[in-house]
């Protein structure tokens, strides 16, 4: 009712009003797109690798803005205001010097808007793993293990407001009002209906991964770091998306040894290198425990590429390729040591033999940012590979 003087004061329920939500989500998607473009840099950071579950990671990105024709925000004079007694020469604040990398925090700089995207480790993982798959996975074996998938296909009485089903809520409110014999209707909490999900089991295939690591004396601190961070992400990936995959850890210098996960990551480096031993041990384990007819097999090996007996390795990889879905070989080259673009001898030997073989993927890593592209190369779909 309008009063005299002419005003109206009203208070209506606004609980179901969430119009901005859609645009907020679209903005979130765009933030994720930006983060995905910089995943290489983000996932190579030590504090993310050592983060525990549930930890919140703050990733500063430049605010998503529309580009405008605007003045240089750092040039020219502006006007400010103090609480009294300001003198020429007083310092108001300091600006981070440009070019100091991703660590830059939201500053005082008027023109540049930094946005700190917050992710839990799990959300970040999800972004990282979104496009990764175990390539060429076959249905093998009788022991079908299950992986879970969620599907929005049901209705619940309770749920987050973002999932509210307006149509069903309205119908419920109508029905209840009609039953109560009241004209019109008001939505009550009990009328609310939410779209909800069910967990749908998805058949998964048996798979075994061989994580093999060169721990010889020539593997320096950098090589070990890259190797660990690759395997760290690989394990998280496998355990997130392929929950029942088996993983066999092997370390190798002149002798290969099957170890547990802790030992695998903690292993120090010493001695010479004879990587053929690692493949021999893997083949032996396959023979005893993982019948290739029953198992999808994925051997990965990381090394600096300096090895005794490259020819033997090539022969073993050939043998391995005949029973594996995909073989990964990663060569780590510390550019500080003046390595060129070419593979080291072992990589070179493998390259000459397997360059055209889609089942053998060879990757060279020279800095931290290349761990992510390596993961993507190993765990993309590789549709070109024929089943074994």
């Amino acid at each position, binding site marked *: 009712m309008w009063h005299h003087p002419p005003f109206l004061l009203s208070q209506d329920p606004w609980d179901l009003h969430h119009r901005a939500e859609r645009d907020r989500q679209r903005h979130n998607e765009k933030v994720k797109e930006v983060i995905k473009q910089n995943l290489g840099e983000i996932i190579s950071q030590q504090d993310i690798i050592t983060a525990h579950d549930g930890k919140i990671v703050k990733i500063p990105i430049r605010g998503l803005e529309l*580009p405008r024709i605007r003045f240089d925000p750092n040039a020219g004079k502006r*006007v400010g205001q103090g609480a009294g007694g300001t003198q020429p020469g007083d310092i108001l604040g300091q600006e981070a010097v440009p070019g100091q990398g991703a660590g830059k925090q939201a500053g005082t700089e008027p023109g540049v808007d930094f946005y700190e995207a917050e992710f839990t480790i799990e959300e970040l993982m999800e972004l990282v793993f979104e496009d990764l798959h175990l390539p060429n996975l076959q249905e093998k074996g009788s022991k079908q293990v299950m992986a879970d998938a969620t599907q929005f296909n049901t209705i619940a009485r309770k749920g987050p407001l973002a999932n509210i089903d307006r149509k069903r809520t309205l119908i419920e409110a109508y029905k209840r009002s009609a039953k109560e014999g009241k004209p019109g209707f008001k939505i009550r909490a009990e009328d609310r209906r939410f779209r909800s999900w069910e967990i749908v089991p998805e058949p998964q295939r048996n798979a075994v991964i061989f994580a093999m690591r060169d721990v010889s004396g020539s593997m320096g601190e950098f090589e070990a770091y890259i190797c660990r961070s690759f395997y760290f992400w690989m394990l998280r990936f496998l355990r997130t998306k392929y929950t029942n995959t088996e993983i066999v850890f092997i370390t190798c210098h002149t002798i290969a040894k099957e170890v547990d996960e802790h030992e695998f990551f903690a292993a120090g480096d010493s001695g010479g290198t004879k990587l053929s031993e690692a493949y021999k041990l893997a083949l032996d384990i396959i023979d005893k425990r993982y019948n290739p007819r029953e198992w999808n097999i994925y051997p990965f090996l990381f090394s600096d590429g300096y090895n005794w007996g490259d020819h033997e390795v090539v022969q073993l990889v050939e043998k391995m390729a005949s029973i594996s879905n995909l073989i990964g070989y990663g060569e780590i080259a510390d550019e500080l040591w003046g390595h060129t673009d070419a593979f080291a001898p072992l990589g070179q030997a493998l390259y000459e033999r397997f360059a055209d073989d889609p089942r053998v993927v060879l990757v060279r890593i020279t800095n931290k940012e290349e761990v992510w592209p390596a993961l993507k190369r190993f765990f993309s779909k590789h549709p070109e590979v024929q089943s074994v």
Partner: protein
Amino acid sequence: MTSQERAELEKFIEQAWEKVHEMGLNPFPVHFELVPAHVIYEIGAYGLPARFSHWTFGRDYHRQKTMYEYNVARIYELVINTDPSQAFLLENNSLIANKLVVAHVLGHSDFFRNNVYFAHTDRRMVERARLHADRIRQYEMEHGPQRVEQFLDAVLSIEEHIDPVEPAYRRRDPKEYEHQKSILARPTSEFDDLLGRVETPEPPSTKRIPPEPEKDLLLFLHDYARDLEDWQRDIIGMVREEMLYFLPQIRTKIMNEGWASLIHERVLESLPLTPAEHIEFRRMHSSVLSPGSRMSLNPYYVGYRILRDIERRWNGEPPEEEEQPETDWLQRPKPRPAGEGWQKLLEVREMECDVTFLRKYLTEGLVKKLDMYTYKLEEVDGSLIWRVQETDWEKVRDTLLDSMTNFGVPVVTVEDGDYGRRGELYLKHHYDGKPLDMDYTLRALKNIYTIWNRPVHLETVMDSEVTIFTYDGQQVTRRGRGA
């Protein structure tokens, strides 16, 4: 808010209304709505209730809501320039907070109704914006949300390039306009003549396209960009209409907030409050009217202090003392002499925008009292620091006015819409000593290209040299004027 509190608030509104009426104010009828915080933040982000959908609004909503949740900043009130005005109050505000807000809203509504810069704004903008939103949603269904979003990104990135001085409804000479469009529609491939695509050459246009340099880039693109589909042209028109609506608010921010703050103070001073309410009112009033962060101005504070200074001077009172209490020791409001001051304020709120207001009424004494200064970024020993430059009042005033010219946006005009007789777009930045941010500007230039669909040139000045940047759809090139 309980129904008892609502009844008390209604009573208060009646009294406040009577009071502002006595003071000579003339607000629109106002619909006050009590809403939860998320609604206020949503409308704050979109500028209007039920405006069209875009991720930048979602971003602003998220930011403001986060700031509210972390208690960093909050919006107390929001009022829309319509007839009747729509005002949104936070339902979980205290009663006294909402009393203050109601009085503040009456000040804004009076300002909307009487300030001359708002004379041409559409007072039914909420309905119009809702229709815009419906049409854009329809376009999303017809052409896909992605295409619509990309196009909106391009248009919104140049939305400030309109001309508020020209009437929004001007007409072009229809015959000349058709003729000019036919010129721009001719084929442009360099092989056209060999392929026999060239028809009889048109008679040379009597006028350039545009006839005069055109500041309203959106209008020009709307009228002359030849490859646009109807829905795209419509989007340009809608964005431009909404921007024309918002512009007066941008141009009167300091005055409008100063005026509303002065009004809420006078209204609350003159109406009965309990002692507890009085303390709370003073606390809120001084938190709203405090100096800004040192890198910016608080428009509420600056506007309010200038208005009070005008009133004093026109009343023939001596200039403001350092800290003059507003009430005596019994907390009774101090009597205010009835002079010319208030009449002068009513005139100022009607006639000025921020630029003219500051030019006329920001005095030496005020600059000193408000502790205003200029500052800039300096490099010292490899680190960058923001350092105070001048406190001289004329330098401060001129720097402030300069930063507000053209609402702080570089002035760009369309010089030629048929550049090189190839239908290319030649834009000129009217350089005034402040360099452009070329990273942003060139990305905006690419957006203009997506609308114009032929090469776009931008003339500016870099290091004292006239420089022309060109984007041809593939890459940006740069040349001096002579080259």
